[in-house]
């Protein structure tokens, strides 16, 4: 980018930056909490460990991002205050992340769709003009590569597995596909952050996500579902009913015992 175009690049307001970082942070936090629900319930010991490890990575990313959001906001809220003391309408995660675990196939399909989006998003964000966000993205992208290898590997094994496993992941793909539109369709804030050089060009994410998913679906012998209209807007705080239940469990201890420490 030339020095001239640097100088005319618009600056987002602190409020816009806060909202934008929250979308990434809350998506990681909610996805991490969903996977944490499976600790001790994985189909095999190795898968249990894998899901737990991915949950840790996601919650770790959320912590870095929420701490950044708190600094941007400047009202003294730290990562714990943002994670535990906000209600569902204040969460900015994409609605895909809050969908229930269902069976192992449903969990895997949700992760696969989300991993591809996080991987492409963080890869683009490593070039963000926001240095702190770029540093977090550099760290997160390495972890997301592992997550994608895990989820796309299982997608192939289940999709190209038995009749039963194929039927189950096909059904999961059909039911979760409608949530992908939110990942790929930019709203005004996405567009604004792209213009400011902080977020990636929205068309780029869609193109890279579609390419990645098409290859994974072909390998898994799965049909790409038809486009479905998306009526939820988790990025703007309009969630499915599942988020409230997830938060009730996640936030119980800090809300019941304010200020409790280990």
């Amino acid at each position, binding site marked *: 980018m030339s020095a001239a175009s640097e100088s005319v690049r618009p600056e987002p307001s602190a409020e816009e930056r806060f909202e934008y970082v929250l979308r990434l942070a809350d998506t990681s936090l909610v996805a991490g909490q969903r996977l944490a629900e499976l600790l001790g319930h994985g189909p095999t010991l190795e898968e249990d*460990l894998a899901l737990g*490890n991915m949950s*840790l990575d996601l919650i770790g990313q959320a912590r870095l991002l929420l701490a950044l959001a708190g600094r941007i906001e400047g009202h003294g809220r730290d990562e714990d205050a943002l994670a535990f003391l906000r209600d569902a309408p204040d969460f900015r995660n994409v609605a895909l992340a809050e969908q229930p675990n269902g069976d192992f196939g449903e969990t895997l399909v949700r992760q696969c769709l989300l991993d591809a989006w996080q991987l492409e998003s963080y890869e683009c964000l490593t070039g963000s003009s926001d240095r702190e966000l770029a*540093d977090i993205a550099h*760290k997160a992208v*390495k972890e997301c590569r*592992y997550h994608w290898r895990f989820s796309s590997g299982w997608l192939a094994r289940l999709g190209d597995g038995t009749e039963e496993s194929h039927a189950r992941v096909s059904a999961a793909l059909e039911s979760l596909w409608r949530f992908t539109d939110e990942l790929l369709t930019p709203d005004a804030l996405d567009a604004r952050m792209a213009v400011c050089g902080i977020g990636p060009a929205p068309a780029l994410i869609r193109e890279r996500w579609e390419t990645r998913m098409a290859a994974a679906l072909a390998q898994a012998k799965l049909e790409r579902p038809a486009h479905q209209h998306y009526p939820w807007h988790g990025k703007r705080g309009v969630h499915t009913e599942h988020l409230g239940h997830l938060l009730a469990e996640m936030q119980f201890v800090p809300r019941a015992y304010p200020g409790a420490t280990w």
Partner: protein
Amino acid sequence: MVNDPPQDAAPAIRVRQVWQTLESVMDPEIPVVSVVDLGIVRQVRAGQDGQLRVGITPTYSGCPATEVITQMIRTALDQSGFADVTLETLLWPPWSSEWLSEAGRRKLEAYGIAVERSEPGTLACPRCASRRIERVSEFGSTPCKAHYRCLECLEPFDTFKCL
């Protein structure tokens, strides 16, 4: 043990003393390697005001040992007379297994943990050195390790991942 605070020493000498202190801080989960061997301590630098800063970096974003390690470093510095040294977290450049020291790699292997390198095909069983191994899972007992099995001696083993 509380040493005399080495306040008067020149900054370069104090930086060296801080490194020596940190070399005695062992990883809480792999107690044969120090936080310096692991590359978790990124830098020790003296500011223009003479204030020393220790820069540490997490291996994985969610590694639960990170906080324990920070506390252990703080305690070691306090006990060695470096209570005025500040700790800062550095995310850039992100940690990778390339940050492991050669000594650290040898200690891990002697402890039974293989170390993955960026060149493929170099991983060997830490017990019998066989290259006939298979990966059980990319995810192991801690975020930084993967789980392998040796097809020669049939023993399972942990591998420090190439991140």
